[in-house]
């Protein structure tokens, strides 16, 4: 972090304390936090990369914010905390960054921190009748046996407002009126791509309001990681976003390696990059297939799956897994690449290029597909940045948010590829970004596949891995956006807190903005082109 920025922040808020340790961060008192955040926002820090709730035990509860200025690429990490353990209250920043809206609900759900002036302080993942807050260190799982009673969806949400005298009052915020025609989409619905649930208020066929319910596949991975050693945590990342298994694991390995100060060999970097790109192709093919299925073009669905199997064959031969490869390890990869890997990958690329043309003939060029995708579900660039909707969604809105370009990792700085950008921000742009990215991924692989250097595929690591005290953040470009890992270590063999920046949560949070005023059929197309994976949202 440059000293210029440190000076600037200390000038704005003299009580802010800069602490080294890992990435380093500012600690800002809660009462002055919102002002400082507002100034940073005005100064160009328009992208809230990650918002992490924390339980620091004696020091109280708090939140860590990772901010980035999209124009200059500067990063800053802030934290704020309150010592109150009974009813912790912190100021909300959802008026500055829309991304905070669902993230703060998540923090409330995990830690019970109430955010003042947040319009919707319901639980995000857990049931409303859940007892206690699971990520608090003192949480006892016995409090919550399996409840088989059906959950009632409330039509209003609580919100907390600060009074001039320092106390706060609870108010109700109406979500749906009594006489609205509210239909329920999901959790079991063919077009939600898993167990996501929307409550949609309709006027005829037009969507008036949309309320997202997550948590139907919330597995509490972040809490589980706190009880696992670092190598054990790797297994769970593959199951977050199973279409980006290699990338997720890459991010966690990178973060741990960053903490340990380990530099992996060139060969590993190459292999990881190729695997990430193969995974991206796999994911984008599935995206194409599912979008076509949602839109009713079933044949194209089968084409997508047909070609996806070819990628899976390559992955399987080297890693042993089709979907969940568990391939990356701390300091390397599980096994060396298969002798056929290079040949098969090259064959696949030669096979895939004509197939892409076939896709465009079958689906992209179709007049109905164009009519339905063009101009529907527009997400502006400002909104995309504010929501933190990275990946193909952000690039379709004209936001150059590719982590591979912003913070190059592995060997991405050595390869030549184009960051696909569109400016329309509609469903068609989101679709085309992904189709073009398949080509770019193939270009990257082509540049690397013949030049994999010789070397170790696995560094020798200590039997017990301990990361030095501090907090670390590392991100990769996942198949559907920035996938980040935040680790706070206390020097133990277990992480003190491990947070995964979900790629899907920002996408779901911007759904309300995009879908309002469109038709139900458009909701399906928008959901399809946003391309979220639900277990990645819920974690």
């Amino acid at each position: 972090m440059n000293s210029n920025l440190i000076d600037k922040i200390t000038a704005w808020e003299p009580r802010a304390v800069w602490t080294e340790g890992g990435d380093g961060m500012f600690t800002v008192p809660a009462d002055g936090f919102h002002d400082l955040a507002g100034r940073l926002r005005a100064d160009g820090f328009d992208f809230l990369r990650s918002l992490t709730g924390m339980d620091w035990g004696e020091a109280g509860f708090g939140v860590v914010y990772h901010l980035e200025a999209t124009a200059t690429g500067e990063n800053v990490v802030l934290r704020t905390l309150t010592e109150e353990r009974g009813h912790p209250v912190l100021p909300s920043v959802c008026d500055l960054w829309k991304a905070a809206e669902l993230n703060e609900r998540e923090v409330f759900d995990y830690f019970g921190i109430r955010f003042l002036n947040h319009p919707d302080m319901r639980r995000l993942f857990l049931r409303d009748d859940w007892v206690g807050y699971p990520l608090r260190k003192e949480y006892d799982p016995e409090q919550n046996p399996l409840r088989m009673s059906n959950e009632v969806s409330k039509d209003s949400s609580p919100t907390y407002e600060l009074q001039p005298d320092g106390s706060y009052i609870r108010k109700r915020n109406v979500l749906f009126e009594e006489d609205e025609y509210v239909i329920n989409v999901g959790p079991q619905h063919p077009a939600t791509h898993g167990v996501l649930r929307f409550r949609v208020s309709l006027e005829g066929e037009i969507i008036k309001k949309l309320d997202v319910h997550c948590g139907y596949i919330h597995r509490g991975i972040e809490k589980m990681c706190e009880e696992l050693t670092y190598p054990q945590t790797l297994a769970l990342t593959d199951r977050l976003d199973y279409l980006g298994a290699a990338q997720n694991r890459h991010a966690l390995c990178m973060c741990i390696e960053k903490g340990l100060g380990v530099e992996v060999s060139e060969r590993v970097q190459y292999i990881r990059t190729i695997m990430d790109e193969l995974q991206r192709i796999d994911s984008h093919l599935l995206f194409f297939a599912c979008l076509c299925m949602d839109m009713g073009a079933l044949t194209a669905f089968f084409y997508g799956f047909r070609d996806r199997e070819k990628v899976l064959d390559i992955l399987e031969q080297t890693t042993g897994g089709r979907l969940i490869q568990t391939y990356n390890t701390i300091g390397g990869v599980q096994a060396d690449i298969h002798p056929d890997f290079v040949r098969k990958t090259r064959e696949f690329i030669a096979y895939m290029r004509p197939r892409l043309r076939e896709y465009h003939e079958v689906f992209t060029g179709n007049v109905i597909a164009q009519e339905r995708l063009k101009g529907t579900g527009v997400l502006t660039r400002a909104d995309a940045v504010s929501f933190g909707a990275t990946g193909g969604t952000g690039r379709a809105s004209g936001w150059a948010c590719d982590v591979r370009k912003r913070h190059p990792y592995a060997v991405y700085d050595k390869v030549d590829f184009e960051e696909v950008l569109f400016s329309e921000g509609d469903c068609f742009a989101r679709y085309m970004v992904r189709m073009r990215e398949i080509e770019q991924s193939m270009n990257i692989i082509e540049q690397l596949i013949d030049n994999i250097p010789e070397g170790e595929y696995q560094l020798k690591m200590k039997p017990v891995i301990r990361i030095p005290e501090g907090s670390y953040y590392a991100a990769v470009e996942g198949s559907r956006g920035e996938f980040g890992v935040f680790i706070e270590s206390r020097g133990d063999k277990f992480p003190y807190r491990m947070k995964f920046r979900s790629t899907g949560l920002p996408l779901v949070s911007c759904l309300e903005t995009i879908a309002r005023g469109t038709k139900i059929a458009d909701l399906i197309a928008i959901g399809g082109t946003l391309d979220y994976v639900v277990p990645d949202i819920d974690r």
Partner: protein
Amino acid sequence: MFDFSIITSWVHGMLTSVMPLGLAVFIECVMVGVCLLLMYAVIAVVMIFMERKVCAAFQCRLGPVRVGFWGLLQVPADVLKMLTKEIITIRRSDKFLYNLAPYIVILASVLAFACLPVSKGLEVLDFNVGVFFLMAASSIGVVGILLAGWSSNNKYSLIGAMRSGAQMISYELSIGLSILTIIVLTDTMQFSEIVARQADGWFLFKGHIPALVAFVIYLIAGNAEVNRGPFDLPEAESELTAGYHTEYSGMHFGLFYVAEFVNLFIVAGVAATIFLGGWMPLHVAGWEGFNAVMDCIPGFVWFFGKAFFVVWLLMWIKWTFPRLRIDQILTLEWKYLVPIGLANLLLMVIVVVFKLHF
């Protein structure tokens, strides 16, 4: 060309020789009804099997192959399963209408099916306003779908039913216009007559441009009329789970399912009858030998051949195109198909008045 009226009049003669006329007619009616329903069931089975195989072929799959030789017993297995599956009654639904709806749909379908002339002398309902009757009977189906959607007490069903209502009633207009275009050419509404007038050439060729336009409009509108992709909005699997029949299970759902496929066949059959000459063989004026050979092929083979060709065309469309949106469906109908249909009708009148057709 074999005339089936020889057999039917022989049966009639036999029966009247042993019993009074009234009883004979009654027995004949029962026989015809049974035959019709049997044929209906067989067509349904064939259609479902064909759908599975055709879509499998388009999708690089095999489709059913394990149940019976080449999967031939797959559909009978499905039927047995359906017949023995529980029929769920929904609490707080309108029970009477809920149970009635599938039967209305199937009734409309059977009535329309009875109008199709399968071969020479093999028509069930054949009178001078046959086309009117077919249009009237087939449009009862929409009532069944609306009732199904309304009485299920399910929001998805209701949206599906409303979409279906808007869509089917709109497209009825285009179907009517395109059939009317051909009626202008034939000056008859009796199906057997329509077929007989195509002895020297099918209307698709005889009426050249306006007939061709009418045929295309008819195919589009017919596809929409039977709620098949890209017009399958009322069911819209990925939007409304199963649309108007979301709440139906067992054989009630089976009836909707069967009716959908037979309706497709009916649309194709009508297209074959009024545009492609029905059971009339392909005749080329002047080629006597060729015509004689064509005549050797029985009429019902011609009819089913043509009908299944059209079915195949429609399946091809269904498995290729994405689904339309409700506003696009209505735009297509009211802004494009209806004006074109009207203009086309006018064109056909001009063609007929000035005797420009072949």
